[in-house]
C-alpha cells in the first residue's frame, strides 16, 4: 500500500511540475478553445467519419478545394484552378505551389496515393463511398477491378490532377473539400504505419499543424507558418477539449474554460437562451420517424398518412424541443442552392381521422399494438412522448414507447425489427441528393422496407444522366413528393438547428448550415 501511495505522490508532483511549465507558456492572445464533445477516433483523413474529427482534420489538412465560411461553396485550396469538361465528367485541377509540414512539395501524386488508399479494400476505410463518384471507384473498392490505373484519377504531372467521374456530379467540388479526399503523405505513412498521425510524426498540409495530443484530455493545433495562405490565419493556437459529458462541457463553457461549445444540454436550453453567447442556426439535417412498411398496419399507406397528418409539428418545436427548430413536413431541409423544397402532408386532424377510419380503424378502434422505438436520449424521450400523446388524442390509438440503447436501436432498425422508429439524417454535402438517394429500393439507409419504382428512376436519373441543373432539381423534387406526399414511409418532423454557445470575443464567425467554422477565418478580440 505504501508503495502505491508513494507512486501516487510522485505522480502528483510530476503533474504539478507539468502545470507550472504549461502555465508559463499559456499567455498568448490568439488562442481558441473548442469543446469538441468527443475524443477524435483518429486523425487519419482516410479513416474517419465523424464531426468531431472534421473540426480538427479540416484545419490540419487541406483538399483540392476549401469551403467558403459563409455559404460553404467551394473555394480554391490545394488546387489553384480547375476546368470541367463539357459532359461534366472530367475535372482537371491545377495545383498551387504548396508544401507539407516537412517542406516536401504537395503534388498530384499525393492525391492519387490518398484516393487509392481510401478505395483499397485492405484499408477498410468507412467512407470509401465518398470516392465511388470516380469511374471504377466502387468496382475497385469491391475488388471487381484490381488495377488502379482503371480508376478515374491520374496525375498528368506533378501539378496537374485529373479526375474522371462515373456520372456528372454537380457537387463534386464540394466533395473535394471533404476529408476523405484529402491528400496524405505516403512517405510518413510508410515509415510509421498507423502511428503516422501522432505528434512528432504527423506530416500535414493545412493552415494548422499538430502541436500536441493527449487522448481524452486535450489536442492542440498551432498555426502552420509555411502554409500558402498563412497570411489569412490569425489564430496562433486552437485547443480541442474532448469532454463527452455535455452537462460538464456546458459548465466548462460557463466557467470560461472554452470559447465554443457546439451543443447545449436539452435541460439547459431555457437558461442558455438568456445568455448573449447562445446561438441558433438552421442545420442541414432532418428529424423524422421511420415506418416499417413491411408489416400491417403500417403497410397501409392510409394509416401512415393518418399518423403523419396527426402530428402538430408547430407545437412540437414550440413546447418540446424549444431551441428554435423549424417544423417541416418535407424531408430535404431548406437552404439548398437551386432547390425548392416540397411541402409534405399538412397537420390536419380531421383528414387524419378520416383516413384512419377508411383503413378500418374508426376512432382508433381495433388498431393493433404498435411500438415506437427510440434510443436512450432525453430529447428523443420527450419528443416521442409528445407524439404518442398527439396520436392518442387525435386518432384514439395507443402507441407504446420502446427505449433501447444506441447500438441495439441501430441493429433493430437495420433488421426491420421495429414498427415505428425515430431517426435523424444529416446531409453529407449541400445537395438534395444526400437526402433523397437513401430511400431507393434496398438502400443501406432506407431501413423501412419501402420501395417505389418511379422514385428509384427519378433518383437514378438525377444522380447520373441529367446534366442540366434545373432539370435535375425538378426530378429530385418529384421524387421528394412521392416520398412525403404520396407514399409516406417516413414522417419528417423538423429541421435540426445548430445550437451552441460562442464566446463574444471570437470574431470572424459565419453562421452556416453545417456549423463548420474553418479556424483560418477566426480571431480573438478582447
Amino acid at each position: 500500500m505504501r508503495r502505491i501511495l508513494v507512486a501516487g505522490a510522485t505522480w502528483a508532483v510530476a503533474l504539478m511540475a507539468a502545470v507550472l511549465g504549461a502555465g508559463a507558456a499559456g499567455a498568448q492572445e490568439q488562442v481558441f478553445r473548442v469543446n469538441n464533445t468527443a475524443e477524435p477516433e483518429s486523425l487519419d483523413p482516410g479513416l474517419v467519419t465523424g464531426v468531431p474529427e472534421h473540426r480538427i482534420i479540416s484545419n490540419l489538412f487541406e483538399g483540392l478545394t476549401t469551403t467558403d465560411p459563409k455559404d460553404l461553396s467551394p473555394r480554391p485550396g490545394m488546387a489553384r484552378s480547375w476546368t470541367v469538361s463539357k459532359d461534366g465528367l472530367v475535372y482537371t485541377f491545377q495545383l498551387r505551389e504548396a508544401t507539407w509540414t516537412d517542406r516536401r512539395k504537395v503534388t498530384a501524386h499525393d492525391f492519387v496515393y490518398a484516393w487509392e488508399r481510401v478505395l483499397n479494400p485492405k484499408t477498410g476505410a468507412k467512407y470509401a463511398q465518398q470516392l465511388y463518384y470516380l469511374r471504377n471507384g466502387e468496382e475497385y473498392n469491391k475488388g471487381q477491378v484490381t488495377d488502379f490505373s482503371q480508376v478515374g484519377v491520374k496525375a498528368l504531372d506533378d501539378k496537374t490532377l485529373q479526375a474522371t467521374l462515373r456520372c456528372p456530379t454537380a457537387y463534386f467540388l464540394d466533395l473535394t473539400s471533404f476529408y476523405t479526399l484529402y491528400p496524405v503523405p505516403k512517405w510518413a505513412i510508410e515509415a510509421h504505419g498507423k502511428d503516422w498521425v501522432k505528434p512528432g510524426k504527423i506530416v500535414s498540409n493545412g493552415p494548422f499543424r499538430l502541436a500536441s495530443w493527449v487522448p481524452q484530455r486535450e489536442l492542440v493545433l498551432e498555426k502552420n507558418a509555411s502554409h500558402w495562405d498563412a497570411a489569412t490565419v490569425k489564430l496562433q493556437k486552437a485547443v480541442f477539449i474532448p469532454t463527452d459529458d455535455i452537462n460538464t462541457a456546458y459548465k466548462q463553457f460557463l466557467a470560461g474554460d472554452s470559447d465554443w461549445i457546439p451543443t447545449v444540454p436539452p435541460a439547459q436550453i431555457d437558461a442558455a437562451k438568456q445568455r448573449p453567447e447562445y446561438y441558433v442556426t438552421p442545420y442541414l439535417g432532418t428529424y423524422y420517424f421511420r415506418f416499417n412498411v413491411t408489416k400491417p398496419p403500417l403497410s397501409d399507406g392510409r394509416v401512415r398518412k393518418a399518423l403523419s397528418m396527426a402530428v402538430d409539428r408547430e407545437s412540437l418545436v414550440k413546447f418540446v424541443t424549444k431551441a428554435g427548430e423549424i417544423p417541416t413536413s418535407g424531408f430535404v431541409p431548406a437552404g439548398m442552392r437551386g432547390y425548392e423544397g416540397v411541402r409534405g402532408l399538412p397537420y390536419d386532424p380531421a383528414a387524419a381521422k378520416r383516413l384512419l377510419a377508411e383503413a378500418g380503424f374508426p376512432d382508433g378502434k381495433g388498431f393493433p399494438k404498435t411500438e415506437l422505438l427510440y434510443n436512450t436520449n432525453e430529447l428523443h424521450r420527450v419528443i416521442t412522448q409528445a407524439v404518442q400523446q398527439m396520436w392518442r388524442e387525435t386518432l384514439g390509438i395507443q402507441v407504446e414507447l420502446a427505449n433501447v440503447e444506441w447500438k441495439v436501436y441501430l441493429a433493430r432498425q437495420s433488421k426491420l425489427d421495429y414498427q415505428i422508429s425515430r431517426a435523424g439524417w444529416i446531409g453529407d454535402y449541400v445537395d438534395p441528393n444526400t437526402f433523397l438517394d437513401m430511400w431507393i429500393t434496398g438502400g443501406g439507409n432506407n431501413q423501412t422496407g419501402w420501395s417505389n419504382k418511379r422514385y428509384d428512376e427519378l433518383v437514378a436519373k438525377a444522380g447520373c444522366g441529367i446534366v442540366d441543373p434545373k432539370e435535375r432539381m425538378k426530378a429530385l423534387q418529384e421524387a421528394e413528393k412521392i416520398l412525403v406526399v404520396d407514399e409516406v414511409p417516413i414522417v419528417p418532423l423538423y429541421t435540426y438547428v445548430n445550437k451552441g454557445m460562442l464566446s463574444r470575443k471570437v470574431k470572424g464567425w459565419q453562421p452556416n448550415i453545417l456549423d463548420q467554422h474553418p479556424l483560418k477565418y477566426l480571431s480573438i478580440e478582447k
Partner: protein
Amino acid sequence: MLRYLVGRLLGLPSVLLVIVTASFFIMRVAPGGPFDMERALPTEVRTNIEAKYHLDESLVRQYLRYLGDVARGDLGPSFRYPDRTVTELIGLGFPVSLTLGACAIGLAVVVGGTAGVLAAIRRNRLVDYLTMSLALGGVSIPNFVLGPFLILVFALQLGWLPVAGWGTWRHLVLPSVTLGLFYTAYVARLARAGMLEVIFQDFVRTARAKGLREAVVVGRHALPSAVLPVVSYLGPAAAGALTGSVVVETIFGIPGIGRYFVTSALNRDYTMVLGTVVFYSLLLVVFNLIVDCLYAYLDPRVTY
C-alpha cells in the same frame, strides 16, 4: 506462506481465463456491432472492415485467436480508435486513474482516519455526533450527485477550481473528493469503531495507569491495534477506487481508464472492452492477494 502465495499465483491464469471467456461471449451476445453506425455502411465497405479485424471468421476462431493474442500480451487494436492499440490506451489511462484513486484513498486515510479517532476519543460529544452524521451523509450520497454539486459550488459559483479536465493539482481536488468521500466516511466509521474497541482494553488502561500523556496513550498504544480494520479495508477500497472511478471520470472529463471502459462498451469496441476487463480483473485479483498477505502479516491469528 510462500506455498500459499505460489498457489494463489498459479490459480491466477484460470481465474483470468474464466473472466475473458465469459466477457468475450457476453459481449458478442449484445445486439449491434462495432461498425453499426447511424449511417449504414455499404455492404462491401463493411465486408472490407470486418475482414481487416477478422470479424468475418467464426466466433470460436475469433475467440481462440484472441486468447492466443492475450497470452502473448497483445490486447489487439482498438476498433474505435484505429490509430491506437488497446495496450497503448490502457497505458495512457491507467496512470491517470491511479493518481485519482491514490488521492481518493489518501484522503480517506488521512481525513477519515483522523476524524474517526477523534470521534472515538470524544465519543458521545459534539465532535462525535458531528463527524458521524457527516460520515453517514458521505456513505449515502452517490458520486453522480456529489460531483455536479461540487462543480456548481466550487467551480461555477466560487470559481476556485476548474470544472473539469486534467493536468494540474487543481483539477485533482474535486474529483478526488467526489471519489474519496464514500471511502473517507467509511474509514471514519471503521476507525471510530476500532478505536472504541481498543480504548477500553487492559493494555490501554495500563498505559494510562503509568501516567502517560493522553496523546501518547492514544497515538502509540491504542492506534496500532485500532487501525487494523482500516488497513484490511484499504485493499478492497483501493481496488474499488481504481475500478470504480468510471462515473467520476465521466463527470469531470478525466482521461482515465474508466472513461475508455464506458465509451468502448457503448461502442461495442470489443477488443477495448475485453482489454479493460482483463486489466481490471488482474488488478482486483492482485489487490485481493496483497490484502490477504497483509492480513497474515498484521494479524498473528491468521496463518496460511
